[in-house]
């Protein structure tokens, strides 16, 4: 993948990457940090991507893995030329942001893998696709989603 192709891919899938980072972060700076880390991992992995899975699935895997495995304690290093967000989802004065915040609050109470499963489900991916990304069987995805729904019910 050339740099231009990579850039095009990032632009086309930026909302997917930002969605994942937003659901695993607590503030704007952390979202920006995670976003950059995801880009680094996508770039590192672009040499291994052979098109044997859908591009979208590959991006979901890298973004989710980066956020789940991210070591937050070491993140407060020097960061120059950050990729900042034009859309500040942490500014709760706007109604749209409050709705996004509600979603993040609900999902944020789940463990990282359950968070990943519910995000993929909200993106209308099939149980098979979710299973391939997470690494469990489609029937396990179905059982897991029932438990997640129970958990969400108890959060009311």
């Amino acid at each position, binding site marked *: 993948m050339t*740099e231009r192709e990579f*850039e095009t891919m*990032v*632009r086309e899938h*930026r*909302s997917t990457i*930002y*969605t994942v980072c*937003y659901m695993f972060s607590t503030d704007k700076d952390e979202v920006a940090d995670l976003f*950059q880390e995801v*880009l*680094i991992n996508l*770039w*590192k*992995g672009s040499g*291994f*991507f052979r098109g044997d899975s859908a591009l979208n699935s590959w991006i979901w*895997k*890298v973004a*989710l*893995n*980066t956020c*789940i*495995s991210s*070591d937050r304690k070491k993140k407060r290093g020097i*960061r*120059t*030329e*950050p*990729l*900042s*967000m*034009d859309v500040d*989802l942490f500014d709760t004065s706007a109604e*749209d*942001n409050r*709705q*996004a915040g*509600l*979603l993040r609050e*609900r999902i944020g109470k789940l463990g*990282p*893998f359950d968070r*990943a499963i*519910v995000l993929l489900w*909200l*993106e209308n991916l099939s149980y098979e696709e979710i299973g*391939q*990304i*997470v*690494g*469990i069987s489609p029937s*396990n995805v179905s*059982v*897991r989603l029932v*438990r997640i*729904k*129970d958990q*969400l*019910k108890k959060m009311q």
Partner: protein
Amino acid sequence: METTDNTLLEMQQQMQQLRKQLDAQKIVNGRMLRQAMNQTANRLRFKYFVPCIFAVAGIFLSPALLSLGFSLPVVISYIAMMLAGVAATVIINVHLPRMDKDLVTAASEVSKFRKLNANWYKVGAPVGLAWLAFMIWDMVKNIGVDAEKLYGLIGGIAVGLIIGGLLGWKNRRDVLDAADDLLDQIDELRNS
């Protein structure tokens, strides 16, 4: 059930809204994108390769140890330790977990990688302490350091070891707890 269905419906609507907002998110121009990535990548490489550069520089400066009066075995064992450290750093970095595998596999590899890194002291600490003891013995035997300076040196090394050891131990504990937590979640996910 109805409450859960309403909640899920709301979440789906909120997700669609979130996506619309994020679609409006601009990414700065391509040049800044590449610059930001290169700077972050360089920062990550710096973390691993600076110790290697210091180790290689130390190897080139090892003749100075001979001119200070240390014996050849001390210098050779020092060079061997430095080379082993560089080799371990390079090998570990070649096998960094890949983020494009499925979540369970990637998280499992990351946890095991972190545990391996956190447990390097089981080899490194005894080797390092043994070499320090060897160096001090060599100083007394071959260079003839007087008792006052020797106690001062041992005292300084001991303080450094205690402080470094406590900080390193705490960091190791945090890393291992986080790695075990992730592995527990993977087990729970697989067994559900």
